[in-house]
């Protein structure tokens, strides 16, 4: 009954190593693997039968060269990062990208005002908006609107789904079936989320500083004077990004879907802030600040930038210790969850 008159000759297929590649196919090339098939040159023979045919199989070892680890990791990072700007990478969704844009523009408000005040030469305006200790602090750590409407929301939107969607859809298998360690997987996700926030916070901060230099014609003396302040602000911004990201990713790793981690991060940051606010405002007890990531960040920021502290019942080192503890717990949860993550669709 078979129409297969003759057995087609098996075609040996060779996989040539695409020696170090660039551009679009880098991701694919980086994911090439030799693991598990080191000495596989197995062959199964054909068995002729009237109703079926088993083709002769021949596997050849992939003898290409595995790209270095950083290149593979760079592919993951790039995949997440470039997704904000163009298609063909991780799809972040139009509203997220829109919100990032809005926050970026809104974060530039002090840059704009500095430029305006410099151009029209209004010293009153400049004293309100120009670079100063308080304004540097406010650029990163001000509560309203930046740490209420901008940065925590951005972090919540970014972490929602970064790991949890992989778990939900089973796409983490795409990573773990490649020569990529779980540590690298998480680290790259962490760095990419942190870098996106970095663009919003640090880049605008740098622009703010340079806008002041450019429009007010600041000289070296001023720069030497204020650069430590700027560095302290950068440091507190890094601390903020790191804290939000680590808490967010740990939430993302314990949950499924996009909803939970985002809301949970937001409710942790804003909820503890509100509780601490009630407690200090009403009862004059500041102890709850130590539970609030934002307040700890603000307290440490005030200490290192040197602005007027709003928290006076405890030393800022308490806040720093609390931050270290928060990050430690978050990273611990993250690492245990990811290392025990089952590569299935949940």
């Amino acid at each position, binding site marked *: *009954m078979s*129409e297969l008159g003759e057995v087609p000759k098996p075609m040996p297929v060779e996989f040539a190593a695409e020696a170090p590649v660039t551009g679009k196919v880098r991701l694919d090339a980086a994911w090439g693997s030799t693991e598990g098939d080191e000495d596989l040159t197995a062959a199964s023979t054909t068995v002729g039968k009237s109703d079926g045919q088993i083709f002769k199989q021949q596997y050849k070892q992939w003898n290409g060269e595995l790209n270095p680890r950083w290149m593979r990791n760079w592919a993951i990072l790039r995949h997440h990062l470039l997704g904000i700007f163009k298609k063909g990478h991780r799809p972040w969704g139009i509203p997220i990208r829109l919100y990032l844009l809005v926050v970026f523009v809104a974060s530039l408000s002090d840059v704009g005002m500095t430029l305006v005040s410099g151009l029209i030469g209004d010293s009153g305006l400049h004293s309100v908006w120009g670079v100063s200790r308080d304004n540097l602090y406010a650029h990163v750590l001000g509560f309203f609107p930046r740490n209420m409407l901008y940065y925590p929301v951005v972090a919540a939107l970014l972490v929602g789904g970064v790991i949890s969607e992989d778990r939900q859809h089973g796409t983490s298998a795409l990573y773990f079936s490649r020569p990529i360690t779980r540590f690298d997987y998480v680290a790259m996700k962490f760095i990419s989320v942190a870098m996106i926030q970095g663009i919003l916070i640090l880049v605008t901060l740098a622009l703010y500083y340079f806008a002041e230099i450019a429009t007010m014609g600041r000289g070296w003396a001023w720069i030497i004077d204020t650069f430590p302040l700027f560095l302290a602000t950068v440091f507190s911004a890094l601390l903020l990004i790191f804290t939000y990201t680590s808490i967010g990713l740990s939430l993302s790793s314990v949950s499924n879907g996009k909803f939970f981690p985002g809301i949970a991060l937001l409710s942790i940051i804003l909820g503890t802030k509100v509780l601490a606010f009630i407690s200090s405002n009403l009862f004059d007890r500041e102890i709850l600040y130590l539970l609030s990531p934002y307040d700890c960040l603000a307290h440490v920021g005030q200490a290192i930038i040197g602005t007027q502290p709003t928290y006076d019942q405890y030393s800022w080192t308490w806040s720093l210790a609390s931050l270290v503890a928060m990050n430690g717990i978050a990273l611990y949860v993250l690492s245990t969850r990811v290392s025990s993550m089952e590569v299935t669709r949940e």
Partner: protein
Amino acid sequence: MIPDFDQQGKAETKEWAPEANAPAILLENVSKSYGRIFALSNITLALNGGVTGVLGMNGAGKSTLFNILMGKLKVSQGTVKLFGTDPWKNPAPYARIGFVPEHEKMYDWMTGHEFVSTFARLNGLTRDEAKIEADRVLEFVGLTDVVHKKIGQYSKGMRQRVKIAHALVNDPELIILDEPLQGCDPLARTTIMNVIRELGRMGRTVLVSSHILQEIERITEQIVILHQGRLLALGNLHSIRERLDKIPHRISIQTDSPKQLAKDLIDIDEVFGISFPDGQNLSIQTHNLGAIHSKLPGIIVENNHKVNAIDNPDDDLASILGYLTSGGRV
């Protein structure tokens, strides 16, 4: 044991009454497009009574068709009527319809009985009525002994049967089953097939989709074939094949002396090709199956050939689909 369905009243709301004489399913020039891609194009179809198999390969438009019938999708063109009512606008006809969705995900935390009785209440049954009905349909699909276990512990076949039970709980006149046999082991498959055949015997309109053709063949002879969104064929399996006379039929004859038989057969006008797949078999190609079948026995007897088997290998669904979708090439 098959309970008497007709003892039960019909769940209907007062506002909606089915149009008299309207067929269970009526599709007129229905198209569904996503941008430029047509998932369904220009389907016209009326079904009433009996079991109908919807055949098609993956992506042929079976699920789109069912989703349109179940009011999940809006048609781009044409009209859809279930018992005379457009399901996109009015969900009332579902009082007489049972639907078995394709999706595997179920409420694993419910027991089979809870699942069926809870959703029975959406048909307007009271809690007590729903429990009685749930017992009845779960017995019908043969799950009586596991009804109080969590669905999460069920096997694939049991899950499919619970879904069928849930669809039957309102004693529907039209039952739509989307891939009910998918992923079931042979035993569950047989049980489900029996259930579907039984429903057909009771006079319900049943619509079953599958891409595994032998399954449909065992359930029904009435089929609808979809391919790339178009209606390829509709009707009885065998009569569809008859209508494809322009495409050569094959008759396979297993005999000890194929060469001799071939020599005798080559003289018949209707035979236009003979081939020898192997030493024991002979394959005849013809446009007129009926003529060959009437002449063949005579020739065999006349010339004293020893024939072990005569087979029409094309007369199954697989080859029909092959013919229809490959433009008739063998």
